[in-house]
């Protein structure tokens, strides 16, 4: 037993809370490190100069004014869905149905734009579109919540499956409203009259969306932190038993919160259909309902930090798309780069929560692990 006196190589132990500058330092370090690894991977696998690749990623978002607008539009839409899922997530209700709730909202606004265009004047139609799409999203979010509150069904599976129902509904109505017949798509709705289109403030197509989402961000921050309902959500999320103990009606909070969550998703769907795209497809949501999960988690459900995380994800995604064309690389390559960066950012949380100490000789004593 010669190796008996061997100390384990590493110990992992929980840290106490780090001051904010240290935890952000670790995160910043992770980003820098991840860029280094990306550069290395780029050089080794493609032979390209990593800095020109990084430059291309930057250019994808900021080289022209138009690109910057698109960047902000995409951030706004992703942030909007992420804000929508936050109340549900704070309640530990894993709403993976953002896609379906957005589609429900988009479908409602499409229906209003097509069916009511000859009935209502534009000034009345737009409020009707807003209300209908919010209601549609709210209903889509409320259904799984009712089942969860009444029978304790699993909300993850339920919301996920509601997505597919929404997709099928949208496919059906695309055929109903297809333009021209046989095209299999709706095309631009009311292209000549622009009825039901949200106004473009100052001629900027995306500005309204961006303003709406900015207001939503602030509102959600206040709602979660300073309202009684937000407080109830946090209590229910932390402990259902505590909530019951203080007399909170847990079932009501679940349903109410999911109505809010679904309603905001519906609003996002409306912003996409009436605000920017003016058409409806099954892929209009662009998977944002799922990406939102990542945005919210990385920001620890804090609406203000979510601005940062959604920016990061959109920026990386844009850059990734661009370098594939610019350098003739495979699309998978940009996914690899995005994956590396996310891996480092998410992995850095481990080092914020835990301390690793390596084997040390007994002589060094207490000083070496502070």
């Amino acid at each position, binding site marked *: 037993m010669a190796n*008996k*006196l*061997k*100390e*384990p190589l590493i*110990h992992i*132990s*929980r*840290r*106490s*809370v780090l001051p904010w500058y240290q935890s952000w330092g670790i995160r910043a370090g992770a980003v820098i490190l991840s860029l280094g690894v990306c550069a290395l991977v780029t050089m080794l696998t493609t032979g390209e100069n990593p800095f020109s690749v990084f430059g291309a990623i930057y250019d994808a978002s900021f080289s022209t004014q138009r690109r910057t607008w698109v960047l902000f539009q995409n951030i706004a839409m992703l942030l909007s869905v992420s804000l929508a899922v936050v109340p549900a997530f704070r309640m530990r209700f894993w709403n993976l149905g953002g896609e379906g709730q957005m589609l429900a909202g988009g479908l409602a606004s499409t229906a209003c734009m097509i069916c009511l265009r000859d009935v209502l004047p534009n000034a009345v139609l737009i409020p009707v579109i807003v209300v209908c799409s919010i209601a549609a999203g709210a209903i889509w979010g409320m259904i799984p919540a009712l089942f969860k509150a009444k029978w304790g069904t699993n909300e993850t599976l339920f919301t996920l499956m509601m997505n597919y129902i929404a997709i099928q509904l949208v496919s059906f109505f695309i055929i109903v409203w297809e333009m021209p017949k046989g095209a299999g798509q709706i095309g631009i709705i009311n292209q000549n009259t622009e009825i039901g289109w949200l106004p473009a403030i100052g001629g900027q197509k995306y500005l309204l969306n961006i303003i709406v989402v900015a207001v939503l961000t602030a509102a959600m921050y206040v709602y979660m932190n*300073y*309202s*009684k*309902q937000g*407080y109830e959500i*946090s*209590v229910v999320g*932390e*402990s259902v*038993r*505590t909530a*019951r*103990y*203080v*007399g909170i*009606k847990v079932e009501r909070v679940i349903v109410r919160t999911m109505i809010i969550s679904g309603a905001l998703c519906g609003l996002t769907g409306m912003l996409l259909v009436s605000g920017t795209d003016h058409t409806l497809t099954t892929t209009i949501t662009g998977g944002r309902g799922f990406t939102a999960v990542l945005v919210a988690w990385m920001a620890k459900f804090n609406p203000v930090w979510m601005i940062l995380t959604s920016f990061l994800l959109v920026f990386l995604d844009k850059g990734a798309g661009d370098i594939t064309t610019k350098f003739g690389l495979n699309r998978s390559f940009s996914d690899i780069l995005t994956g590396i960066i996310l891996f480092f950012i998410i992995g850095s949380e481990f080092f914020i929560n835990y*301390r690793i100490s390596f084997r040390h000789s*007994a002589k060094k*004593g*207490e000083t070496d*692990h502070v």
Partner: protein
Amino acid sequence: MNTSVAVEMRNISKRFGTVQANQDVSLDIRRGEILALLGENGSGKTTLMNMLAGIYFPDSGTISVNGEPAVIASPKEAFELGIGMIHQHFKLVDVLSAAENIVLGLEGKLDLKSAVKKIREICDAYGFDVNPSQKIYDMSVSQKQTVEIVKVLYRGADILILDEPTAVLTPQETDKLFAVLRNMRDDGKAIVIITHKLNEVQTLSDKVAVLRGGRYIGTLITKDTNAQEMTDMMVGRAVSLNIDRPDPVDPQLRLEIRDLTVRNEEGLLKLDHVSFDANSGEILGIAGISGAGQKELLEAIYGLQGTEEGTVIFHDPETNKAIDLKYKTPMQIRQLGVSLSFVPEDRLGMGLVGSMDITDNMMLRSYRSGPHGFLNRKAPKSMARWIIRELEISTPGTTTPVRRLSGGNVQKVLVGREIAQTPKVLMMAYPVRGLDINSSYTIYQLMNLQKEKGVAVIFVGEDLDVLMELCDRILVLCAGKVSGMVDGRKADKQKIGMMMTRVGGEQDGE
């Protein structure tokens, strides 16, 4: 008797984050001796023993077993050295039998027959009472504990560590356990029991080692010391060990419970026609083995537990009206103007929100007040400050999440909030569980203060000595039935112990 040194720990230190759990602890464990490891909560007793059992690894210091330097990096290596630890929470598979649990995880061919034979030998040698083929789910807590001990012995351990083994036992079961431990000592095994109960130290141990704040304070020969000396060492200053019991002030009927019957979610009868009265200005103790229906009783009164039968009547001292609380939710009870406060057993799982700070936890009771939809943190914040000051809660501030506070401070936050509601009835489930002596006495004092204010205090406790010193009357529950009501001033511990096990079946405790 052979009292050679079995384990020698030298200058052991261990640190978790900013907490120094152990600092330069040196300790000898001898064969043929029962060593009590005494210390308050957070004094590092369990951490120290966990390093011996291979669960943690010391930051510095050396351990020798049987005179040879040893490195214990895993529980398996601890077993190879003959060290076995019985933890507070049992690690048994419910659907397997005792014998199957005992051989579980051992290498080699599975031979239950010879295993059963060996288990019988161990049981005969030390006086254990285990049926090897009985399933764990059929066993009482003390039987499960016995299985854990046999499991450790089966693996050849001759250095046994027991972490607060009596916390879950009745007095009779405790006596039985102690007898077995004495047999093992006489057989030359080294035994350590971790405890913070002084009477156990005195009846069982040969030596007592005291830890305080992670440091080793000293070792005493048990028969040459007394409770006062041990407490002073443990706390670090002189402490009064007497619990006051002022006479009840003008007791009046406050809560009238009649034929309360409760089934749990699985449909099992948890309370069976329980009837009793609770009076104002009085502390009513509730004694019973864990799981005898204490939790269901308090939750049924408070409105969290659906009841099948029976009534709960609250007699309002201001209006002299009798209010029926049956089938009411906690919210409805409050809206009726009935002020019930409840300190539940599971503090962070039910009474408080661990991730929230003290202010937000104060707000749990009052956040609905105010006309608009936004929170007002002003009043809760000043209440948080008041409680921190009055109850001497040690915390960096009002914004620290309560999860980061020590057990005693968490309990003070909860008790403080509940008392601040100026209740008419104050119900407490195991309010001192896991608290050190100082915090426990603070809680007892608070209960007495409430009693003097005319509150009807209902106190579910596990330490019979404390119940008998503090309570005016003690209700004894046994398997969901009322086994009897005892006058706290004339109570006899053995008698209460028997009442805890006797009603509701043939098994008569002893």
